[in-house]
């Protein structure tokens, strides 16, 4: 059983490398033989010389980031990337989604597809395809979307989970909102689920919780990798309570994204702090879960500054009692607990039917995974993967900003010259409006 990863573009390659590092470090901790075995089988294969090789394909239109990732991986001494599993070119996509999707993607599809096929054939059982990319740039978003489309055609019966990184609201690239709108609307049709990280949120976690003064991209990527690792590492689930589950992506999807209209997943993780203060902190499960639950309903991005006045009200009450602030309603949640004494953790706070839509029974919308193995240096840690209104506001922001630019046709010619017409833009806007409306009607 293996999960094949795809690292697309600069962002995807950096996050991918961090993810494999976190997983490898975590699996090599003490007292975790079976855990390591399961994790290794999931993310690596053994080469003929006995080295661990990542089940991953690296794609970028520029060579720099890929060669860095490959060099760092082989320096770790624990694992490396495959010799023929990377593809790069000399010329980037110039932050233009259309250039990636219409030019670079089709031009190199065969080479990339061959690499992915090699990795897939190496798995006895393909547990899913996991892609990592940003939505702001050109290569990750444009080529990534194109490749996802090709993979969906070639592997219609496999799970495809897309991890995407949303740009800073303040803006890195002038056309980032265009790129985001085009990527999201296309992926929504292709992917089984889209796991979203917002740069703004992760940045805040780094500065407020981890106390990092001079933040680098690598720090941000480490936080994302930590969160992803806490989801993807082995755990006991409802389907396999006695063995580490062998179908992580499948189980994740079938507990969270069964409805075709709702595919956006957000991640929150607790606790997160610098390694210096970690040594002096003690956590208990009730405290962690109470915080995590309040983060969920108040739609808080991190543990600090949670609004404790937000309360869950059932539908009837909220009409009569308008003093309550509206809370973040969920379609489904998955709670992953790792560390000491997980069996004592009480998760009843997440089983409140008022948190969820009325048309689903709670046993359908809430599930728990756990593992007694402490994750990545944290004695206890809890991760919540949520299909909820959490991403509604940032999504609305992106669409609004992109629409404002589109209304004056700014930069549109940069896209039309590669074959993305104004009608394609309008289709994308319509699709995203539909998603926004679906999520708005959850509550």
């Amino acid at each position, binding site marked *: *059983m293996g999960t094949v990863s795809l690292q697309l573009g600069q962002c995807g390659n950096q996050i991918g490398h961090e993810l494999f590092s976190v997983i490898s470090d975590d699996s090599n901790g003490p007292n975790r033989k079976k855990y390591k075995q399961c994790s290794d089988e999931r993310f690596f294969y053994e080469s003929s010389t006995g080295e661990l090789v990542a089940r991953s394909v690296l794609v970028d239109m520029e060579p720099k980031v890929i060669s860095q990732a490959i060099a760092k991986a082989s320096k770790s001494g624990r694992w490396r990337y495959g010799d023929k599993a990377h593809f790069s070119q000399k010329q980037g996509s110039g932050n233009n989604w259309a250039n990636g999707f219409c030019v670079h993607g089709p031009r190199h599809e065969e080479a990339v597809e061959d690499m992915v096929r090699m990795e897939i054939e190496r798995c*006895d*059982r*393909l*547990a899913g395809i996991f892609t990592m990319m940003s939505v702001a740039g050109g290569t990750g978003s444009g080529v990534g979307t194109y490749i996802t489309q090709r993979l969906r055609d070639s592997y219609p*019966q*496999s*799970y495809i989970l897309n991890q995407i990184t949303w740009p800073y609201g303040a803006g890195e690239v002038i056309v980032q909102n265009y790129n985001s709108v085009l990527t999201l609307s296309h992926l929504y049709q292709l992917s*089984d689920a889209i796991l979203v990280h917002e740069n703004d949120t992760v940045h805040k976690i780094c500065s407020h919780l981890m106390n990092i003064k001079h933040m680098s991209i690598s720090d941000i990527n480490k936080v994302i990798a930590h969160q992803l690792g806490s989801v993807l590492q082995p755990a006991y689930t409802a389907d396999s309570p006695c063995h580490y589950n062998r*179908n992580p992506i*499948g*189980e994740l*999807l*079938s507990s969270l*994204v*069964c*409805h*075709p*209209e709702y595919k956006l997943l957000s991640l929150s993780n607790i606790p997160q702090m610098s390694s210096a203060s970690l040594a002096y902190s003690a956590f208990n499960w009730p405290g962690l879960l109470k915080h995590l639950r309040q983060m969920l309903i108040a739609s808080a991005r991190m543990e600090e500054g949670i609004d404790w006045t937000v309360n869950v009200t059932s539908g009837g009450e909220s009409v009569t009692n308008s003093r309550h602030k509206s809370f973040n309603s969920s379609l489904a949640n998955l709670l992953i607990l790792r560390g000491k004494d997980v069996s004592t953790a009480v998760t009843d706070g997440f089983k409140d039917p008022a948190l969820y*839509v*009325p*048309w*689903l029974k709670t046993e*359908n919308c809430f599930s728990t995974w756990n593992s007694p193995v402490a994750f990545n240096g944290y004695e206890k840690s809890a991760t919540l993967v949520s299909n909820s209104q959490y991403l509604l506001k940032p999504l609305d922001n992106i669409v609004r900003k992109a629409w404002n630019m589109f*209304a004056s046709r700014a930069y549109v010619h940069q896209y039309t010259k590669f074959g993305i017409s104004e*009608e394609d833009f*309008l*289709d994308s*806007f*319509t*699709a995203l409006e539909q998603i926004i409306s679906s999520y708005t009607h959850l509550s």
Partner: protein
Amino acid sequence: MQREKSVKVKEVITSLCKLLSGLSIESIPTAEAFRRAKFNREDAALDMWSLLSRLLQRAFALDCACHCKDSKDFDMQLLFVRSALWHCGYGAPWVLGPRPPSHIDEVGSRDLLLAFGWVLSSGNLLDFLLAEKVHQLDVLSSAPTIPQGLTHGQDDAVTCGPGEDATVKTDQVLQALQWQCGKLRLQWKSLLSVQEEGSKFTHRVISNISPSAARQPHATGSHHSNTTSSALDKELERIQALNRILEAYLDWKLHEPLFWCWMDSVIDSSLADVSEVEPADWPPGERAVTVRCPHSNNPRRAVRRLDKMLLRLQTDLRARRIEQSTLTLTSQGGRQGASRLSDRQRMEVEKKVAGYLEGLHLPNTSAITSSGFLPCLQDQQPSKTPHRFHNGEPGLAGTAGKLQASAALGELREREAVLQWQLDRLRQNMRVDLQRQASTIDGVVLIPPIKR
């Protein structure tokens, strides 16, 4: 030529029979019985009857689970077949007529054959039966769907009462159903990957035990049976059966157009018979729904003939394409022969079509044009026609009043291009006009519909 054609028809029908028996429909008649039924022979009636009734029983198995399959009671069978045919919208007199046949013997074998053709062509019965069979043999090969035979999906699956409350409730029920359906689909994917893993491991185990058995799955004999377990044998049998059915289906799909050509000839021969028989004993209302059309109804016959001709041409074209591709594969020398042959054949077809068109065109011109939208084939451009032939055969080109198929096709294509151009221009004008109008209204943005 004629002989070759009849051989082909036999082949086609045999492929259909193979497919039907693969779909486990019992009592399939021979191709010969089909031929006899075309000429309304009495001895084919029983064969056709049992085929039709078995097929209908399978098609409606979901709807009438209580129906006794081995019913020897012919009256019951007759009633069932008639109502089933009525349900599929088949309106032959023996099904709908005021004086239903009291016994099977009264229904001619050709009528049964025609009914069989109707059942086959309405809905996609064969596809449905195939899907069902494949699902039986290989539970995981297809995504979970709602079974749907000849009867189309009913809208009243979720009953809703009047009032807003009810619609909200149905909406929620629908959402919950969509969720459950999605869950099933995801779990199905998991099971599929487990199955794949299983087969990979099986292969590895077998190739470790005996490398030759894994490399030669068809190896038979004591060696084979020694090394594989009975469960594996069963698995092999299952997969082979599945392959046989899928191959039969592909074979049938290849030949299907020829079968419909042949069915057309059945209808023709039935029409020819009708013109001799006095059709006066049917009330006029019934006559409208029957396949048999009165002899004097010229335009309809003309359209039928046109349809038929089109089908024949398409079939010929397809056959030729297949023929050519296989010939190209075989040898270089063979290819030249083929092109020469096909040239001659094309001339032959063109001549034949010209004959058809002429026969159709001359006596019926007024009838066709008077009904408005029917295609009107003009022949008053003798100056244009000659240079349009590839091959200047003087006899054909010179004959006034005759219309050549190639000329007609070219003409139609030209007209199509002109019309298309006009349509595009009109569309463009409309769009510009619309945009102009929209720009005068403040605060309105027009979003075109989603393409997919």
